[in-house]
């Protein structure tokens, strides 16, 4: 085990932990429930904003030349969500639709 690899892991891992736990430990977000202040609105919007950002960021690299699998995957997620309202089923079904169309179009 190289020392520089271990050092990098420890520095970055510690920073990640501070990022994830620090604000909770400092009770940021506490007492904001139902509040009307801008901090309450900011925090309430952070969740949808974060997830929307991650949808776009994860789909962008797939929007290359052959969009068939991507269209099938997205359609699969939407259809299964509308039908069953299940995150697990929509995720697995969307991935299966993506893989199937990928296999057919390959």
């Amino acid at each position: 085990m190289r020392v520089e690899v271990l050092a990098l892991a420890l520095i970055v891992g510690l920073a990640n932990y501070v990022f994830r736990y620090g604000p909770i430990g400092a009770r940021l977000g506490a007492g904001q429930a139902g509040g009307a202040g801008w901090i309450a609105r900011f925090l309430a919007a952070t969740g949808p904003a974060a997830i929307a950002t991650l949808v776009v960021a994860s789909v962008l690299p797939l929007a290359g030349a052959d969009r068939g699998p991507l269209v099938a995957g997205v359609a699969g997620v939407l259809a299964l969500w509308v039908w069953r309202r299940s995150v697990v089923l929509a995720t697995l079904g969307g991935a299966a639709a993506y893989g199937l169309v990928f296999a057919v179009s390959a």
Partner: protein
Amino acid sequence: MDETPSTFSRGLLTSVPIALGYFPIAFAFGVAATKAGFSGAEAFVLSLVIYAGASQFLALALMTSGAPLLVAAFTLVAMNLRHVLYGPALMKAAGEGASRHLAWGWAWGLTDEVFGAALGEMARGRRFSERYMFGLGLGAYAAWVSGTVVGAVAGGGALQGWPAVEAGLGFMLPALFLALLLSILTRAAVPVIAVAGLVTVCGTLAVSPTAGILGGMVAGALAGVVRT
């Protein structure tokens, strides 16, 4: 609304699609690390201690290119700055009386996907519980670390004979994010989502994926502040 607090086992169950998405990515990380000259033990430690997907792949590139330790560390830390927003947003959604006594433990697993899944659970009416967070985080973390180990041991080419399976697994996380977005979708959230998505595209194309993600999150959250 279901007022039952979510249990540890429900957290584990919720982590299944996350784990299915994490495992092949972590597997790919294990393969890439060993190909780049890292030992299996080093790949394992990077996943065990850093536990942040994209930044781990970047760590391989930075270290093999000879970047100074502090420069590499600063770059990787900056990539994960967005995680600062997750805890407060989660506790805001959990409500006034939500326990956080054990947050020192479960907060370790508060990745993008775990945060999204927990938020989706509450959007569907379940009460926040720290047991649920432990179950959810443990399933995802176990998949990530075990996927890395299997990838490092197997080496390259394990999925080369199954390209459709590899492609489907590669779409698992985008599918999960989309399903989570649908689960928290409300009329009030539409402007936030639109702004976040637009800024992410612009930031990614103009600067970098990291800038796009961070800019999209902040711009979307600010859109939530200014709406009436």
